[in-house]
């Protein structure tokens, strides 16, 4: 297992997890979220192949209502 940060909180993921693995594990529909990895937006097309590393910081963001 490896330690990462997701939305500001410490989290554990299996070694070699990809961004897509994470979304599946958290049951998030990929077309409803946006991902930032260490402050940079990750292109949707790269989610499947991109392996996360220990210490990575992820933001998983979604569109919500607001004025």
């Amino acid at each position, binding site marked *: 297992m490896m330690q990462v940060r997701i*939305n*500001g909180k410490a989290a554990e993921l299996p070694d070699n997890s990809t961004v897509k693995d994470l979304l599946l594990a*958290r*049951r*998030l*529909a990929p*077309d*409803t*979220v*946006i991902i*930032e990895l260490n402050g940079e*937006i990750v292109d*949707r097309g790269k989610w499947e192949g991109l392996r996360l590393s220990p210490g990575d910081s992820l*933001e*998983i*963001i*979604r*569109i*919500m*209502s*607001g*004025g």
Partner: protein
Amino acid sequence: MEDKLNIGGRQVDSRLFMGTGKFADYRLMSEVIKASKAQVVTVALRRVDFGAPEENMLSYLPPDTILMPNTSGARNAAEAIRIARIAREAGCGNWVKIEVVSDQKYLLPDNFETIKAIEVLVKEGFVVLPYMSPDLMAAKRMAEAGAAAIMPLGAPIGTNRGLKTRELVQILISEIDLPIIVDAGIGRPSEAAEAMELGAAAVLVNTAIATADNPVLMAEAFAQAVEAGRKAFLSGPGSTQRFAQASSPLTGFLRNEESAST
């Protein structure tokens, strides 16, 4: 009479823009947006809450909706720019409402940081609509930076207090060659009509509709008020007079000429 609003090269059918916050659920929000006939609708970006999974709000919006993601939560230009880029990546299109706020009591926007964010985002191809404190010089800088419209507040966000900034908004309308959209503070349809009569290009309403007992009915009322105010502006209202000016001819048939003159 053809009177369409054009923002950033796109024709907008309704001059009532709607915010989507504060509704009990997305179903009600969807009904209200339909009733308002609003085409431009604001959305926000937030971290996913794993404890409380949410539905996809976009599926509740009519297909021809123009999304205007806001940068709420941004306290400076850099944060606003970051949110705008995320919104575009999320498929919100290239419109963005810049909202930079660091004053938590009145939620008044930071015009200086807003101008910096506009300069960067316009170069990246965004259609930028800044929420701002109505100040002529700031609005000029925003226009020079390439803003597509200027969105002065009528009163602080969520207060329903009306067009408290009327005199300043009027100056922007007369001096800035961009659509002026009154955003925030409008609490009643009559106040939306007032802004439109002044020559505002549109108004953005959220709290006034969302916090009404019957939001669907209030959305209809706002739609009518915005249309009425726009028509009044286009029709060129007559001048005001100090003393009465009779609207009916004062023919003296109740009296003969001699007695009328005595």
